[in-house]
């Protein structure tokens, strides 16, 4: 059992040589390639992540720009809407005003026409009365008048004046 704790320096030396040779061989034929592939993949992943982060940043910038533009468009639309409402109100007021003026003008024209027709009718009546009076006077002068016949003539004239055909 004492051999268990007594190192064999030949075995120890062989172990060292074997192990160092194995380290060198594995480094040359295995680990170098695997480490290279691993680092390449990690670099690719890091690059992809950086590209994704950059794309995300760009997308956020574009979104912010679009939001700002949308807000601007909304403000412009609201402003134009207010302007349109104001223009509409002004046009409405103008139309109302013009309509009132036109209506007033029509009323005044109608009143003037009525007045003119009334005056015309009065003139016609006056003319008719004058002509009737003249007619009556002519008849009075042309006939022998007595009190009785004079009354008959006057009645005749009054009848003619009161009849509808005589008015025209």
């Amino acid at each position: 059992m004492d051999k268990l704790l007594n190192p064999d320096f030949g075995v120890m030396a062989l172990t060292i040589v074997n192990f160092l040779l194995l380290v060198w061989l594995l480094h040359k034929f295995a680990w170098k390639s695997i480490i290279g592939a691993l680092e390449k993949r990690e670099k690719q992943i890091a690059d992809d992540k950086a590209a994704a982060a950059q794309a995300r940043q760009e997308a956020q910038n574009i979104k912010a720009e679009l939001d700002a533009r949308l807000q601007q468009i909304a403000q412009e639309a609201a402003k134009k809407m207010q302007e349109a409402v104001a223009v509409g109100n002004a046009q409405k007021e103008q139309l109302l005003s013009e309509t009132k003026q036109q209506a007033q003008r029509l009323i005044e024209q109608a009143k003037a026409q009525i007045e003119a027709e009334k005056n015309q009718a009065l003139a016609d009546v006056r003319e008719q009365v004058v002509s009737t009076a003249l007619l009556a006077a002519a008849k009075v002068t042309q006939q022998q008048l007595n009190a009785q016949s004079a009354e008959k003539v006057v009645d005749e004239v009054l009848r003619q004046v009161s009849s509808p055909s005589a008015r025209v």
Partner: protein
Amino acid sequence: MEVSETIAHHILDHDFGVMVGTLHLPITAHTVTMVCVSLVLLLTGILMARRGKSIFSRLLHTAGEEYVAFMRDGIVIPGMGVEGKQFLSYFCTLFLFILFSNLAGLIPQMKTITSNISVTGGLAVCSGALIVYCGLKFHGLWGFIKTFVPGGTPWWLVPLIFPLEVISLLIRVCVLAIRLFANMLSGHMVLLSLLLIIFIIGGMSKIAGTGSAIPAMGLEIFMTLLELLVAFLQAYVFTLLTSIYVGLVIHSH
């Protein structure tokens, strides 16, 4: 043959006595196993490095990458910092070599070479050499010597502290060898003892020997599983402690 002799016979190394002239070559059961383990490891490494089109090849390559990433991010960089990346190949080989050596004993007719103090001593010497190499590389000769004296030590304590620190480094290296050797040896001794229980009791009474086989085999299976765990654990501990010791020298300030 006594029990202790039987156990020693199974655990001790057997020299084949190969001589070249007057030179005695260390061709033993353990060294033969060590060469076999190294060849298997080399073959595995080469297969892992290849990027074939078959699923097996791709799986092996992916496993290799994951293993290297684990060694780098789990052992080397935490223990040594980014400076340790240049020694990644050493640690990748060290872990797998110890693991394969530990597991080799579970294969019939193979030996657990890490239950040999000469083998673990050789590995510890390699780790010690790496510690010294890193100390010289990162600090120079004078800077490396100064790392053995902690900052703020009074001048009159230096003659006492310096040898203590040197001995401390040597002890760390020795402990690396002894820890691995003792753990693997004890596991195999327990396994052999459990098997021998059957034969000892069987020698006294065949019926009792047969009866004792069942619990002994149950314990044997349990211990084998424990040995499997210990094989991984000790490989991890040896590699981790080496990286920490090297890291202590690199970052001594």
